[in-house]
């Protein structure tokens, strides 16, 4: 183990090794501590609460699992989702996350630790982030050495890009999936390096866990074959590759098919064909290698080579043919949209509408990665410099990552990679600083300047002092030597200061980004009072609890799909659509109801037994994520199904502006969504100009009227508004004229209507 300074000569090698590994363990636990701690901002600033949207479903499912047992969960049919269709939850979820929490829950209860299931769910992501740090350490250790591993672990532990997906309360599939991803890759690299079937199997087992946990497993399914393929193309085929890949693929695929939601996809969809193809190719290549080693004739080898190519081409044509014939499902729309976002916009507005699928501008990258983003190219260069098999993996990862980076979901897994890449240069920089040190030593005559002579050096220079932050020790811990050197002490100091300053800045940045940007539960909003104290805006829960307390359990609530999981989780009421966007038509139905006039929408509402309609309105507070801003997506999705009735241009002014003030188009003004959002809004300003703070426009003085709905509840800051759908008029009038009658308005009649049909 190379170190910067010479060790005292009276230490036994065993002592040195033990001390070094103890230091590593201490450093790793400190890193884990830092990783967990920085994710607790959300709990400290707000409370122990499940965040956002999807986690609410996961939480609800986990509660079922914890209270009723695994088999009940497996067979769970949820009649309240997608009313009136219902949802077979057991067969349509990735159960890994819930199963993990269920196991932890039962384990703790077996120990007589009565921990609430909600706290397990909230703390799961921070807990697993510690494991991710460890997995990253193992992975990077395979790439370079322990020092780089520690640095990489520290980076992944606190980098904002990963934190944003794993703060306490963010109970989503990624919470455990990132760890699984990292560990599967580690097992794969290990298997490849050793040619070990054991590690190949381990990789398969963790791959199975990953499949059970997250749809992003497709990334692994394509990443590993791609690595294998590139290695073959580079002429680096080896029996190690053969053993590792075959054991991973055979066991991994068979086990992944045990997940009901995946089923036969691994042998029937195009996403998985790359893995199958590379598996076949490997068999052929291995076979030719075998034959070649037993046959000497040059001609025969050529023939073999030709046959190989032919078989490969035939296989490819076969796959294409089967796809055409429909045996193999072609790429799904979601996959197309991954490559070409224009595709989604044209054909599947629902996919384009999901904010996770929006492209990312550079400030977001910088926010998430900070200085890692520019050490990353340097890391790639270093990988090319060495270019062992495992480095090829990192490089492919780097390319894939930077292409897909724009998509959050895949992107952030890419971050991992960045880290380890990043680890290397930073490490190298520090390395340099140390090698400088050793050079000084050399100058001082103690040891040879050529650090290579291993015997001489030793001593981790100052063992981590009190190890306040994980990072400090890292800098100290990792030092390596190379046959090169730096002259003079000042340059060394300059570089050490420089590197240390950057790492410190990184820590500050991560802490700031985490506490300010990524810890909001988005169920609860925070603002600041004039005196600087925090003001909590709790409208969502207020509304959901109102529903829970004041409506019958069977009351059906209609809202845009974003809020489906939250309503189900917090209000416990049936919803028409939710965040599991599998049924485009059903969502379009809701979109149509929202974007049509009351008269058109009413039959739709009644046919779906809707009792309450819930809209999110941010105009009073300036909450920009409200339904009026999402309205165009509703229109687009509805237009996709009913192009005759809903047309997007109608919702714009003739000048093509999206307005909600006096100039708004009539279609816009008469749409149900507009009416529900601005109903009685102007009255709030007592005759003064009513300002919508999101759109910065003035709402018309005379607000919309509602004939078919009654305002049921509006929260403190008007963020959530709930309307009750009226039942049909008892006298058989349509509700509009009934309303007019009740208001004492006379019905205008253009022509007399025949009073009664004469009885013949």
């Amino acid at each position, binding site marked *: 183990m190379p170190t910067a300074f010479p060790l005292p000569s009276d230490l036994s090698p065993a002592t040195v090794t033990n001390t070094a590994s103890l230091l590593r363990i201490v450093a790793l636990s400190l890193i884990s501590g830092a990783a967990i701690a920085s994710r607790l901002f959300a709990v400290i600033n707000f409370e122990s609460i499940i965040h956002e949207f999807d986690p609410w479903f996961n939480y609800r499912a986990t509660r079922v699992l914890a209270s009723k047992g695994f088999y009940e969960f497996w067979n769970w049919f949820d009649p309240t989702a997608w009313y009136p269709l219902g949802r077979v939850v057991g067969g349509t979820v990735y159960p890994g996350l819930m199963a993990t929490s269920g196991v932890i829950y039962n384990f703790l209860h077996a120990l007589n630790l009565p921990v609430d299931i909600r706290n397990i769910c909230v703390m799961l992501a921070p807990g697993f982030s510690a494991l991710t740090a460890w997995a990253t350490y193992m992975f990077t250790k395979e790439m370079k050495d322990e020092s780089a591993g520690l640095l990489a672990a520290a980076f992944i532990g606190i980098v904002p890009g990963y934190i944003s997906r794993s703060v306490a309360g963010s109970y989503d599939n990624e919470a455990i999936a990132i760890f699984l991803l990292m560990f599967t890759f580690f097992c794969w690299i290990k298997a490849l390096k050793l040619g070990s079937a054991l590690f190949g199997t381990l990789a398969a087992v963790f791959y199975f866990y990953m499949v059970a946990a997250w749809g992003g497993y497709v990334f692994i399914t394509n990443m590993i074959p791609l690595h294998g393929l590139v290695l073959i193309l580079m002429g680096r085929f080896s029996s190690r590759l053969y053993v590792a890949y075959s054991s991973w693929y055979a066991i991994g695929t068979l086990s992944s098919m045990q997940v009901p939601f995946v089923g036969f996809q691994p042998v029937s969809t195009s996403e998985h064909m790359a893995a199958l193809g590379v598996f076949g190719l490997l068999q052929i290549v291995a076979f030719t290698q075998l034959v070649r080693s037993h046959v000497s004739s040059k001609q025969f080898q050529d023939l073999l080579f030709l046959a190989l190519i032919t078989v490969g081409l035939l296989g490819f044509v076969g796959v294409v043919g089967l796809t055409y014939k429909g045996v193999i499902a072609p790429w799904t729309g979601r996959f197309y949209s991954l490559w070409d976002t224009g595709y989604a916009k044209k054909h599947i507005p629902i996919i384009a509408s999901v904010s996770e699928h929006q492209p990312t501008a550079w400030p977001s990258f910088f926010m998430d990665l900070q200085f890692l983003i*520019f050490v990353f190219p340097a890391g790639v260069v270093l990988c090319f410099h060495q270019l062992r098999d495992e480095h090829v993996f990192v490089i492919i990862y780097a390319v894939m990552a930077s292409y897909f980076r724009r998509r959050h979901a895949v992107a952030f897994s890419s971050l991992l990679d960045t880290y380890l890449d990043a680890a290397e240069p930073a490490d190298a920089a520090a390395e340099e600083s140390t090698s400088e040190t050793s050079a000084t030593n050399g100058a001082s005559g103690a040891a040879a300047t050529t650090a290579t002579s291993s015997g001489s050096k030793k001593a981790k220079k100052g063992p981590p002092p009190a190890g306040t932050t994980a990072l400090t020790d890292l800098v100290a811990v990792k030092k390596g030597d190379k046959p090169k050197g730096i002259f003079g002490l000042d340059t060394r100091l300059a570089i050490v200061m420089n590197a240390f300053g950057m790492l410190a800045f990184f820590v500050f940045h991560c802490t700031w980004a985490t506490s300010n940007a990524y810890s909001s539960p988005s169920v609860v909003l925070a603002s600041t009072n004039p005196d600087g104290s925090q003001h909590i805006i709790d409208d969502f829960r207020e509304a959901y609890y109102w529903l829970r307390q004041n409506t019958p359990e069977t009351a059906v609530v209609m809202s845009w799909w974003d809020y489906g999981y939250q309503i189900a989780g917090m209000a416990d009421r049936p919803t028409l659509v939710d965040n599991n966007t599998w049924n485009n038509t059903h969502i379009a139905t809701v979109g149509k109801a929202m974007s049509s006039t009351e008269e058109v929408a009413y039959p739709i509402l009644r046919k779906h037994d809707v009792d309450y309609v819930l809209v999110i309105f941010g105009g009073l507070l300036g909450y920009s994520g409200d339904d009026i801003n999402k309205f165009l997506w509703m229109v687009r999705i509805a237009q996709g199904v009913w192009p005759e009735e809903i047309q997007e241009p109608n919702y714009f002014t003739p000048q093509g502006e999206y307005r909600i003030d006096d100039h708004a188009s009539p279609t816009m003004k008469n749409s149900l969504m507009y009416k529900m959002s601005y109903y009685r809004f102007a009255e709030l300003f007592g005759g003064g100009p009513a300002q919508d703070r999101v759109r910065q426009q003035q709402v018309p003085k005379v607000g919309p009227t509602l004939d078919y709905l009654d305002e049921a509840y509006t929260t403190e800051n008007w963020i959530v508004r709930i309307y009750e759908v009226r039942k049909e008029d008892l006298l058989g009038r349509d509700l509009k004229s009934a309303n007019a009658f009740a208001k004492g308005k006379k019905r205008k009649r253009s022509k007399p209507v025949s009073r009664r049909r004469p009885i013949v």
Partner: protein
Amino acid sequence: MFLLPFLAFVSLSLLTRAAPADETRQKLVALAAAGGGLIKLDSASYDLLTAPNRDWSASIEFTALDTRRRCAPCKLVLSEFNPSWNAVAKAWSKAPKAHRDNHFFATLDFDDGQLVFQKMGLASAPVVYVYPPVEGPRAKARTEPSKYDFSHGFEAEPLAEHLSNHTPIPIPYTKPFDWARWTTAGAGLLAFAVTLRFIAPILQSRWTWAIITIITSLVMTSGYMFTRIRGSPFMGHDGSWIAGGFQNQFGQEVQVIAAVYGTLGFAFIMLTMVIPYQTTSQRQRFQVYLWSTIIMLVYSILIVLFKVKNRGYPFRLLL
């Protein structure tokens, strides 16, 4: 008893009105045939085509093809939309005659029908309106014309797809075979195969791939995908090159940010891979300080840029 005469009256009135409609249709068919499937309208024939008792449907392109009417969108029309429109109309003229005569394609140029443009309140071109039939078996509740939404671009394919919703049978439009594209692709492949022998060493060099990898990652991390997907302009209208707002950027920012990242990455490479191998202490010391300074300076600039995008960012370096 009373019904009979009433029925007779109704059928009679239908007949009397149907006759001119049929006549008009014949005229239109003749016009369409003369124009190769596309009727060139003026104010008079426009009225004919959109007669209130039509039992055919029509799609009309309102345009301004004359170069005197030049304006940016009109030029776009000349180069992009008009050919698409003609191609779709031509495709329709190959439909079976029974169906073909139930839907007409027409073009109204601004110079031929200023009155119509005024009546429709059209201030811009191109616009495509689809007039549904008012009478006959295909008549629907909606009789006012509907506007074609250009959000899918000016290409013929989405246009044909959309119009097929309004024609009796789908428009038999097939994308013309793109000879230029396939020839280019073929020539490129051939050239590659021929030169393979000479460029093989380049292709096999790891540094070629390293450069490709790094350029890709630099460009992608600088938000290139964002500008491409969102179609953001290269720079702002007022000449500013940096867009305000955290989730927004101009095309030029990609270049600047990629250059900044590249400089910083290069500085790190110099520090780790080149400087340690220097042989004289003077030269080495100079380089160490040079690149360290560059890192600090460029990093500070980067932070300044980031602060422009994210005003709440509390940290800064030298600048």
